[in-house]
């Protein structure tokens, strides 16, 4: 069970720092935190914990001070060394210990563990700096609510090595977001002393971004309380960011058992440690605090030991069984250009759903995005469609924060090639939150990005990198194409999105028109799903070959299929899914069962890519059915910039025709189809 923040003692700024709460109560909290940490170290030594623990012994006061100034609705984002922050805020000793002991009764059901905690108004993740853009996103969401809630993001001196921190500082300052960035400066990044890796001055960094700075330390707790209150108060009042550096010292190892620091130095700090000093100065009261803490913690450990370990996810019904798809015929008259369909859908949905927010580089009008998708939306929806700095990681991180806050962010990444810059935010944050946090949150994040070459943009602006993002549980990767109205696609997506979603929009398709006449003698069909698979089925004859493709390859495949019948009398069936992951292989399997030949076409590199996955799944479900299989993919080197060469190398109509002919004619006894029988 989760302990509410009502356990947190709230301080009023006007009444002065901590005046409503005697200092001793704060110390009691710090003592409790220390007891928990020490017990955890002990449990670790006995082998009752998993992984490692990053204890905050010596730094307890930062959490205590922050908790004293927060209100309901504020959000704290923490890092790997989050126990103190968590306990100060929630007082949930029992949940934390059970969590770290891997029990179902833990904060996250035993799934998150020491570094990945989630409570009302509290999130932590173990990637340095990774939560800072999310902090900005959450703050952005809070700002829209017009209240006075704030976000506190805890980082360390070592975190200043990560780029996302600077992206976030830039954004929170430029956009004036209500975030307090609290840096616990304990001089060591894991084992590395700051002098080795930290250039310049800590406070000069936020100052460079125009963020007001504060400083304090844990050896003077009252001053720390005052500074914290002042900083938080300023954030609340100005609705802008502040930065608080708290000098402190970690008394125990970074993580269990890896302390190489000079023992003398450590000893010196033990001597000045405020909790130690307090306990020394208040013998009897201190002893009572310690005993109370010990009793509580011991009881928590006992309770935890009795509880069952974390449980596996229940099998989702029907995930194992394949079902044959239901097809219905479709007519898709030629319509608008794809880019217009997307634009109109975005506008439609922005009107319908207040929660939708569009962010990205250069998306505001009149420029309207590199591919002009967003055109004039910023004019119609000011404050909901706006430009970001060139910070792909932060763009997606903002999206994470907005999604956690319950909004519907749509992040446009100008080129799909730049997805790599946001990979950590997608893979280690967006994709992980739901499971790590034991299903307490959803991340309805949409990333839209164009992929694909044949425009001469060169190796870093022409790729199809989606394969690197396939297969992350609890995400989806979708590819639009011209045979299903992209507007309809987005309508359906916005209505159903509940997980991080990557939408691939092929560049060449933007200018193409949706729909139009299909090849004579073929039928266009969709499955019944909300994001259906499309099929081009040859009529009046069985198919000789199944061709699987998606997105921007569909027009090339269609042309090839037409020519293959026209010139070579080969009848192909095309299966074009819109959802690449998770993949419903049923339609493909059904087709291959009839044709026995499978050609997989994709524009990106082929190794361990979409085609390989389809082949593996077909093999798993129906070994022996496929007589011949081939994959067409990008050649194995970066994409050249020279236009004609690029068009020749990247998969296209010619490659498909040639490969199909090889596959079909090799085994087929040629019927004499001219007159000379």
């Amino acid at each position, binding site marked *: 069970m989760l302990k509410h923040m009502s356990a947190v003692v709230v301080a009023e700024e006007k009444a002065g720092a901590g005046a409503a709460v005697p200092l001793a109560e704060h110390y009691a909290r710090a003592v409790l935190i220390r007891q928990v940490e020490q017990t955890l170290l002990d449990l670790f030594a006995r082998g009752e914990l998993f992984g490692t623990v990053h204890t905050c012994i010596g730094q307890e006061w930062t959490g205590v001070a922050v908790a004293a100034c927060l209100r309901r609705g504020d959000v704290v984002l923490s890092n790997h060394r989050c126990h103190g922050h968590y306990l100060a805020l929630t007082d949930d000793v029992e949940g934390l210990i059970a969590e770290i002991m891997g029990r179902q009764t833990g904060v996250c059901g035993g799934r998150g563990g020491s570094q990945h905690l989630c409570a009302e108004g509290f999130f932590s993740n173990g990637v340095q700096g990774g939560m800072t853009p999310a902090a900005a996103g959450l703050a952005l969401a809070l700002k829209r609510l017009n209240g006075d809630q704030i976000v506190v993001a805890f980082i360390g001196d070592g975190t200043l090595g990560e780029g996302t921190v600077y992206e976030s500082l830039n954004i929170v300052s430029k956009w004036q977001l209500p975030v307090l960035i609290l840096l616990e400066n304990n001089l060591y990044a894991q084992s590395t002393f700051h002098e080795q890796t930290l250039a310049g001055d800590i406070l000069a960094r936020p100052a460079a971004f125009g963020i007001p700075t504060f400083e304090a330390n844990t050896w003077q707790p009252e001053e720390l309380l005052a500074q914290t209150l002042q900083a938080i108060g300023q954030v609340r009042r100005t609705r802008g960011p502040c930065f608080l550096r708290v000098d402190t010292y970690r008394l125990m190892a970074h993580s269990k058992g890896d302390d190489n620091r000079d023992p003398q130095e450590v000893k010196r700090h033990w001597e000045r440690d405020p909790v130690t000093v307090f306990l020394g100065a208040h013998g009897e009261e201190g002893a009572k605090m310690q005993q109370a803490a010990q009793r509580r913690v011991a009881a928590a450990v006992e309770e935890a030991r009795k509880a069952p370990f974390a449980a596996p996810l229940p099998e989702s019904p029907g995930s194992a069984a394949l079902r044959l798809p239901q097809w219905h015929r479709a007519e898709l*008259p030629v319509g608008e250009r794809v880019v217009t369909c997307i634009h109109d859908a975005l506008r439609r949905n922005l009107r319908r759903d207040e929660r939708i927010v569009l962010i990205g580089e250069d998306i505001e009008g009149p420029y309207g995005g590199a*591919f002009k998708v967003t055109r004039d939306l910023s004019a119609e929806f000011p404050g909901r469609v706006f430009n970001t700095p060139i910070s792909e990681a932060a763009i997606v991180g903002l999206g994470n924060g907005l999604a956690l806050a319950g909004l519907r962010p749509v992040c446009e990444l100008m080129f799909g090639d730049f997805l790599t810059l946001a990979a950590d935010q997608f893979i280690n944050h967006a994709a992980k939150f739901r499971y790590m946090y034991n299903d307490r949150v959803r991340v309805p994040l949409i990333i839209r990005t164009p992929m694909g070459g044949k*425009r001469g943009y060169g190796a870093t602006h022409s790729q199809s990198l989606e394969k690197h993002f396939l297969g992350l549980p609890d995400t989806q990767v979708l590819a639009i194409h011209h045979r299903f109205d992209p507007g309809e696609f987005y309508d359906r997506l916005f209505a159903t999105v509940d997980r991080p979603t990557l939408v691939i929009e092929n560049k060449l398709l*933007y200018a193409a028109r949706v729909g139009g006449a299909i090849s004579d*003698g073929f039928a266009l069909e969709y499955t019944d799903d909300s994001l259906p698979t499309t099929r081009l089925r040859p009529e009046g004859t069985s198919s000789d070959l199944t061709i699987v493709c998606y997105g921007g390859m569909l*027009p090339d495949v269609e042309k090839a299929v037409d020519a293959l019948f026209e010139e070579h*009398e080969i009848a192909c069936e095309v299966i074009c899914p819109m959802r690449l992951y998770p993949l419903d292989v049923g339609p493909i399997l059904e087709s291959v069962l009839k044709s026995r030949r499978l050609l997989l076409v994709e524009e990106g590199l082929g190794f361990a890519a979409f085609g390989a996955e389809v082949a593996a799944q077909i093999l798993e479900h129906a070994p022996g059915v496929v007589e011949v299989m081939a994959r067409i993919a990008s050649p194995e080197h970066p994409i050249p910039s020279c236009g004609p060469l690029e068009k020749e190398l990247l998969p296209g109509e010619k490659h498909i025709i040639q490969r199909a002919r090889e596959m079909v004619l090799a085994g087929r*006894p*040629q019927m004499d189809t001219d007159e*000379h029988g």
Partner: protein
Amino acid sequence: MNTDKGEPVLVYLPKENNNDESAKLLAWRVAAGARVTAGQALAEFETSKTTFEVYAPVEGIVQYRYREGDEIAVGGLVCIVSQDGRAPFPSEQDKQEANVQAAPANAPAVAQAALAAGALLPSEPATQGQRFSAKARELLSRHGLDPAQFAKRGLVRAHDVIVSLRGTSPATARSEVTPRKGPGAGRTALPVGVPYRKEQIPRSKRLEIALLRSGAQHTLPSEVTLACPTLGLRAAAERAGANLSGVLVYEVGRLLQKFPAFNAFFADDHHHFYQEVNIGFAFDVGQGLKVPVVRNAEAKSLQEVDRELRELMVQYLNDELSVGSLAGGTFTITDLAQEGTAFFSPLINQSQSAILGVGAELFAPGQNQGWFHFTLTFDHQLSSGREATQFLLELSRRLAAYEQAWGAVLREEPYCHHCERTLSALREIKAHLVEEVRPDGTKGRVCSVCLRGQ
């Protein structure tokens, strides 16, 4: 831009961005034939990203062909500005226009636009919900066939056309002609330890294999060989200007009416007797093995049959045999005599029940009298060895009559000019030859039978 010389200036569509290969003509700003000044806006275009205008580079009269709503390729000709408004549109531009508007001129603008957008390739319009491949269309037009006779919907291949032409093919034919590869079907175990080279089979051979496989699969083949004495039937025929193949087809055509079991096929546990005699004669002299068919051989005269075979041979040699002349055979004759083959075992063709093989004439050195062999391979489900033998005996008897008629020419044996009986034949009926002098003074011979008026 040679305005000084008064040459017309061609105005092309510029490339506005990297992502569009064409743009839509939204509106003309000037009327066709209007006079424009340099820098005047001529038309407004729309790309996937923006709209833009195209301006007149010089002063003059503007001519254009495109309509509002048309898609024009980047680099394509938009209009011409000329001094007199009568500049011809260059033919090259027609080609460029064609690149964009590859659909026929009466195709709707949207299809053209879609084409320009590279979205799809339009194919020929459907005929009653069908789509013919290029080869199929060629077959149709070559033979003046009506697409309407194809009840098949959807994709139609040339093969479907041929199958349809064959008309009365029994149900079994279909599966043979389009063999589908089922799992493990048709797989022979490959030898181990001996290297071999794998080659593709030419198309004509594939068809032949299929037809023969079908024949073999549905018959119980047996064969009868008959040795026929001859004094040189073939040579005699050639000397006399007739063709042995014509004689064979003519005679077999008649004979099959007496022996219908060899002009039939077996299927569904029933005998099916053809109501026509269409005799295929196998040719294999330079253009591959082909079997053109003489239809209704039983109703044609010897001259007609002979002429038709000559025609077919010419067509065969020129590789001009039509599909129609290769289809519908009910019986086949194959003649390997040219290579000196004594006799051989021909294979029954698809949907037939017999095939006649004709061997070469063999003479012992210095002998006038020789032999040639007939082999009849027949389907035992319809007939028997005895019947086959009867067939061959009758055939050889009929041919012998020819030989007697022509053989005399070869041997120059004395014969009666009236009835053409040779001396040896007359001897047998105890008649004789008498020399006569005709009214015109030429000498000849007449036999005693004719003298007596019999």
